[in-house]
């Protein structure tokens, strides 16, 4: 087997892994869009907010310490304790539920019946607001996030592939963990929406708000639930990306990686987000590997969008999106 082909196989595998990470971010968008028709621009910032909250809770950091100290002349920064990762994740999830309630109570509830573009604009405002609150709450410095996830080359795969191809593949342990978690997450989301009362209610709301209301489903509750689940997905994405690079404000920009995934997979399909993520991941990595060196490299960011646009020409609703037919 030629050396280039072996390298390409390694690139494809890594592309698949990267795609899973993109899909994790895209999932949050899909959940909210599917249930409420809102394109949540703040999803990336929610991942940032969740990761910052997790690190803050784990390290026993006093929220809003700078504001408190500046106002009262105190010097409190830390409670002096640390909290185990699992408990901190549960507490962070509770914070994300409160956030979901607040978003519904103070923003979305007042915009029921408005045009989608109004709701979209509201989420842009929410993104900036949340970024500012995260900054005030936890500070702008880069925080190291260690919830015990393994990182670095998977030596077993390295050895196995070396024995087969004479070249050991690099696969990051963190990417493998992310893949397993993403699979579990998708399974749980599908099971939740198919087999639980709340899940079925969520699907009913997604299909027809007014019909759902007429059979006694509380829109308010369902939307809080959906934003909470999206918050949970954001937390998972924040943990994965934050473990790689430290938790910092650029985490919010991972949303940019989710957009081509959504365009390709469709805004309303959970499997679409996964398949879209995998296609984008593999596509951009392969293009960078094969064509990148000829055109100066750094092709991944724009190629992902080009790939998504090519798909859009043939399937405007995305691979798995619902075909919208409007008759006049």
């Amino acid at each position: 087997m030629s050396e280039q082909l072996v390298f390409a196989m390694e690139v494809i595998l890594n592309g698949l892994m990267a795609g899973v990470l993109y899909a994790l971010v895209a999932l949050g968008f899909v959940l909210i869009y599917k249930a409420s028709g809102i394109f949540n621009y703040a999803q990336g910032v929610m991942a940032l907010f969740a990761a910052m909250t997790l690190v803050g809770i784990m390290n026993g950091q006093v929220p809003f310490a700078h504001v408190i100290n500046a106002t009262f002349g105190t010097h409190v920064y830390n409670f002096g304790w640390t909290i185990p990762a699992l408990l901190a994740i549960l507490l962070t999830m509770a914070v994300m539920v409160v956030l979901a309630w607040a978003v519904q109570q103070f923003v979305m509830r007042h915009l029921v019946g408005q045009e989608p573009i109004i709701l979209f604009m509201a989420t842009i405002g929410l993104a900036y607001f949340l970024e500012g609150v995260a900054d005030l709450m936890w500070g702008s410095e880069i925080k190291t996030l260690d919830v015990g996830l393994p990182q670095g080359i998977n030596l077993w795969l390295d050895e196995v592939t070396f024995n087969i191809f004479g070249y050991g593949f690099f696969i990051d342990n963190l990417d493998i963990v992310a893949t397993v978690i993403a699979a579990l997450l998708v399974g749980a989301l599908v099971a939740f929406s198919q087999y639980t009362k709340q899940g079925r209610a969520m699907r009913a709301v997604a299909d027809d708000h007014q019909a759902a209301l007429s059979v006694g489903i509380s829109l308010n509750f369902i939307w809080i639930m959906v934003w909470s689940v999206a918050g949970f997905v954001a937390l998972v994405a924040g943990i994965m990306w934050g473990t790689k690079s430290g938790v910092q404000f650029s985490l919010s920009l991972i949303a940019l990686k989710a957009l081509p995934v959504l365009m390709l997979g469709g805004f309303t399909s959970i499997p679409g987000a996964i398949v879209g993520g995998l296609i984008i991941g593999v596509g951009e990595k392969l293009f960078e590997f094969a064509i990148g060196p000829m055109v100066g490299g750094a092709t991944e960011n724009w190629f992902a969008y080009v790939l998504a646009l090519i798909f859009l020409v043939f399937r405007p609703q995305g691979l798995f999106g619902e075909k919208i037919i409007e008759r006049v």
Partner: protein
Amino acid sequence: MKTKLATLALGALMAAGPALADLVIPDLSYRTGPYAAGGIPFSDGYNDYFTLLNERDGGIGGVPVRVIECETGYNTEKGVECYESTKGEGALVYQPLSTGITYQLIPKVTADGIPLHTMGYGRTSAANGKVFSNVFNYPANYWNGASGAINYLLGENGDDLSGKKIALVYHNSAYGKEPIRTLETLAEKHGYDLTLLPVDHPGQEQKSQWLQIRREKPDYVIMWGWGVMNQVAVQEAANIRFPMENFIGVWWSGAEFDVEPAGDKATGYKALTFTGLGDDYPVYDDLRQYVADAGKAAGAGDQLGAVQYNRGLYAAMLASEAIKTAQEMHGVADIDASMMRDGMEALEMTNAKMDSLGMAGFGPEFSVSCENHGGPGLVGVVQWDASTGTWNKLQDFMPTDAEVIGALIAEDSAAYAAENNISQRCE
């Protein structure tokens, strides 16, 4: 009622009276956004040094310094807005800590007669004072950095890099592209093979670049990164088990927060520097007494001694020394921007001066002239030790390849002069 009226009248009189003179220094900072982690400590150091001068010495030459902070978010458009909104305040010098903003401000400051100091960043050929009258980039620029890295590697390899493979991982922006020309020229001179690996903003995903490094096995990797790109690159290098001692970052890729997320695996990573390390300098005693302990520190006051804090401190110190020089040259304490420019052009930083400032060895000795706005271009090398959480000095400030850099600066600045119809000065 009478008392109230009298108070009101006094207030009105005070408001209408002449404003107290001050030395205005805008601080185009970025405390928010994806590059805030680097912007915050730099700005804290910059502000704290001027606060120290105000608190301890009553300002510079008896005139207090007024720092006007304006948030740019490392965004070029916002940076230009900040410039436009602050220049009318009597701004003496701008230090935007952004190559993108620098490129936009060069024609503006030249037209407005305000000096621009881009220490260790910006347009490298601005070192040629004959063309760039208002732009200064002492004590070192990117091309010094590129040459400094190659000189260090030459030293590591018995002055012979022929046949060696060196990869440049760079931020795909005006900033990241700056060293390419120098590294290419030096590759011709020293016979090494250069591979260019751009990373798009913000640099959160670099798998392709590091897989390529793993495949091609370069002997050394040089990095020109900023923001999250640095942390991800160090982590990815550790992941592919690239030898950290063969990985060298420019000075903007060599802060504590760049290596800490990778933990112990970052040990051995090297970075270039043109400033001192840590807080073991007498100036820090004063900073603690007059600024930090007095509750007057900028930001959270928790950055003292950090790498980028020291850079901000150094930038402010150089600005204040230029103000002193200008005050002496023109015989007035309340100087304006054109006098400041003269002061910067006549700036002389001796070891004795650094010693008297409580910063002996913090930066190199150098002098600025009409022709040379770039200083000596001396570059040091430091290495990270995760076990102690400190950077350790590997190489003191050493000269770079003046012959190669000088020719490149002359060529690039001549092209700029021709494009902009600038007649050369200093004749």
